[in-house]
């Protein structure tokens, strides 16, 4: 009798601790739950527009202080655009924006010397301010994970932004 009461209490206590223990295990994913699914659709519609954000990363660079953000967008027609925002670096000669096939890049890294694969996006339009660069169609963004502000003349990396999935 005492044992039964004890067991009953223990069960009640357990049930109380996890009021909805099943919810811990159930994958309450938007895809699986119909009601939630509808809500998800709303969230999607509210947000879905003409452009998708694919990647983003923050600039770092000490030798030539570089800061701001690099973001890769995909427009509705599939075109990829790199946009720099809140951007600032030092002015210099022959400075370019490139993608490099590395995870990140150290200050003053020389990509020529290290034989790193790179992709030219264009001459740096300005050393301060928001700016856009087209990324050639077919660029493999799983390979090119870093945006670099690169001085071609001296093969010096002014600053780099490692990209992260958005």
């Amino acid at each position, binding site marked *: 009798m005492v044992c039964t009461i004890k067991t009953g209490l223990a069960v009640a206590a357990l049930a109380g601790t996890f009021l909805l223990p099943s919810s811990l295990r159930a994958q309450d994913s938007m895809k699986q739950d119909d009601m939630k699914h509808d809500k998800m659709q709303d*969230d999607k519609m509210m947000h879905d527009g003409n452009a998708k954000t694919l990647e983003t990363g923050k600039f770092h660079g000490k030798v030539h202080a570089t800061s701001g953000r690099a973001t890769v967008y995909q427009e509705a027609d599939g075109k990829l655009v790199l946009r720099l925002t809140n951007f600032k670096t030092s002015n210099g000669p022959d400075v370019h924006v490139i993608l490099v096939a590395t995870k990140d890049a150290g200050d003053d890294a020389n990509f020529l010397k290290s034989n790193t694969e790179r992709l030219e996006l264009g001459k740096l339009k300005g050393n301060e301010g928001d700016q856009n660069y087209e990324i050639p169609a077919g660029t493999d963004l799983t390979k090119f994970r870093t945006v670099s502000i690169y001085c071609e003349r001296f093969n010096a990396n002014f600053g780099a932004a490692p990209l992260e999935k958005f």
Partner: protein
Amino acid sequence: MSRNKWILVLIGVPVLGGAWWAFRPEKLFINQKVSEAAPAALSSEPEALYTGKLEGKIHQTSGRATIYKNKDGKEYLRLSDFTTSNGPDVHVVLVRAEDKALEQEIVKGDLEHVELGTLKGNQGDQNYDLPAAVDLNQYQAVAIYCERFHAIFGVARLEKF
């Protein structure tokens, strides 16, 4: 002028010219400022203000939290690429990034926060409206917070987009 001086000038001027061309030292003091508009496709989009990556605390949590501003000025939080553990009474809240309580997994006492709503799902992309009066300079972090057990599932510290 003596011959030596002429030779010095003849050599010195091109060398100085070459050095100037290579280094363009005046660029150290001259800024070239641009302010390009966002790509046309983005102009009709909500503007991203802040973003941060979610890091797991007591439960594994990953994904990204971004705060957008709609064209009509309304702000909302969007979780993308999001996964956390399911649980009871889980909420999405804004917290102070510098709050010492964020270093704990289970908060002792109360966590100062701005409620954004009950977590809609423990996986997938989702949006939460921000109260109109919220001061984003004060609340620079997003937390996935279990109110019943004061457990912080995950935190994203927001950075300027």
